């Protein structure tokens, strides 16, 4: 009996890519129905990292929710803060002074580079290479030192306030950022030679995990996932917020739709972010960093509004529904990883298990961002 005929009689078995697994970057569980090495059906089971952010949004005042924003997507925490603060400012009609907007852009873009560096290390550990993680963490520590000197935290920042930022950046922050950018630019060719041209890495990611632009639209996937499928949708350009209009930078997008395209998008995004930071540092205006009369306990007008930012993983949106009291009536956090992950079941049918892990790694997941 030839091999083909034999394999038709196989039974499928169920494997748990469980809550505690090195490749899931947290507590994501995937129920894999397998036929040998091929995935018949991969049903993600989420909720193991659910931490009730939206419930907490309702039973505490607007200002008390600020520390929570650093713990939704803690790898790129400043974007959540920017989204939440932006939504409340839009509903309250607070205008943020120019310098504070620039500081927000600089620190957010630094956080994006740090998030992409952590993703680069973790993605390659998923594919089996441990050494790049040490290089990436070394670079990332430089950014954490800079951000720690200004915000006081390494990971779960709570730096933005309604109407501005709480701490001004000084000269050695600016000097440190410039020296960091020159250092990272000198190391990018090393990453390029060390990883991008590595034949083992290319064999694991090229042509693997194809996601069409139509699937991205149907599932609402945004960020590097949709930019890897040829659609250059970036909230900073398409729906400009803050002062991003003042900087010229371009949005990398590749049309191969595979893991390699998403990898190249993120590597190119790091370069673009450094361009933005440099332009922002050059034209940093003087002036106040907080809007003047922002009431201590904020009471927003009745009604709701939506504000979204381009986080490192996609478009992070906040919908604040207020009924005039000092607590939000309803706070909806639209997290990018939730939608990016929802297309995993459709895209991973029929793939080999190691390829499905490469696809999972190319999503750059943060599990509490999925579960909120």
């Amino acid at each position, binding site marked *: 009996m030839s*091999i*083909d005929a034999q394999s038709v*009689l196989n039974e499928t078995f169920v494997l748990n890519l469980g809550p505690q697994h090195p490749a899931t970057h947290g507590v994501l569980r995937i129920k894999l129905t397998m036929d040998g090495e*091929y995935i018949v059906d991969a049903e993600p089971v989420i909720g193991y990292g659910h931490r009730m952010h939206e419930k907490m949004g309702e039973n505490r005042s607007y200002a008390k929710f600020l520390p929570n924003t650093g713990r939704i997507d803690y790898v790129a925490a400043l974007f959540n803060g920017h989204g939440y603060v932006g939504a409340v400012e839009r509903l309250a009609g607070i205008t943020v002074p120019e310098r504070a907007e620039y500081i927000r852009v600089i620190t957010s873009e630094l956080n994006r580079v740090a998030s992409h560096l952590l993703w680069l290390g973790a993605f390659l550990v998923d594919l089996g290479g441990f050494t790049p993680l040490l290089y990436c963490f070394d670079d990332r520590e430089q950014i954490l030192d800079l951000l720690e000197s200004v915000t006081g935290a390494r990971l779960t920042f709570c730096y933005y306030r309604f109407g501005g930022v709480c701490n001004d950046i000084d000269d050695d922050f600016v000097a440190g950022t410039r020296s960091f950018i020159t250092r990272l630019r000198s190391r990018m060719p090393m990453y390029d030679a060390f990883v991008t041209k590595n034949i083992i890495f290319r064999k694991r990611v090229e042509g693997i995990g194809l996601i069409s632009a139509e699937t991205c639209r149907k599932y609402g996937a945004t960020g590097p996932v949709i930019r890897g499928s040829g659609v250059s949708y970036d909230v900073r350009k398409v729906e400009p917020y803050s002062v991003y209009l003042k900087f010229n930078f371009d949005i990398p997008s590749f049309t191969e739709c595979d893991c390699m395209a998403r990898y190249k998008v993120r590597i190119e995004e790091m370069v673009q972010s450094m361009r933005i930071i440099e332009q922002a540092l050059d034209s940093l205006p003087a002036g106040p960093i907080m809007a003047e009369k922002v009431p201590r306990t904020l009471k927003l007008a009745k009604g709701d509004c939506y504000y979204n930012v381009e986080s490192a993983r996609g478009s992070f949106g906040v919908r604040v529904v207020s009924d005039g009291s000092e607590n939000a009536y309803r706070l909806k956090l639209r997290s990018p990883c939730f939608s990016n992950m929802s297309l995993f079941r459709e895209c991973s049918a029929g793939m080999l298990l190691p390829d499905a892990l490469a696809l999972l790694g190319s999503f750059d997941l943060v599990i509490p961002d999925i579960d909120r």
Partner: protein
Amino acid sequence: MTNTVVWSLIYLLAFLLAGLVIGLGAMVMAWLLAPKRTRTVYQKTLRSIECGVAPIGHAWIRYGVVYYLYALIFVAFSVDVLFLFPVALVYNETPGWLDFGEVLLFVGILALVIVYAWKKGVFSWKSKLKSPQA
């Protein structure tokens, strides 16, 4: 039983004894020194590991034959290496390229296994999903 034969037998015996002592000794030491009881909360110590959740279904099912073929190829080559051990002992006795030629011939013939397996499609993981449509 000349002197050298007795001595080589003693060496052989000593070698076997050392193997046994190291093998069994480690297990006995562990049995003596290791903690007797494992602290558990749900008494799930002996459950097979599935990332923290209960495994679904049982393992005795008919899964793909390709795993079995991989194991067969491994056995073929481990036997091949087994035969190379005695060759290594007497490799340098005769000068010239004769020994090298013999070893090459031996390994070459056994390498035909890979060519045969390649032709039969063992190395391309056939999948049930692909075969019905293809």
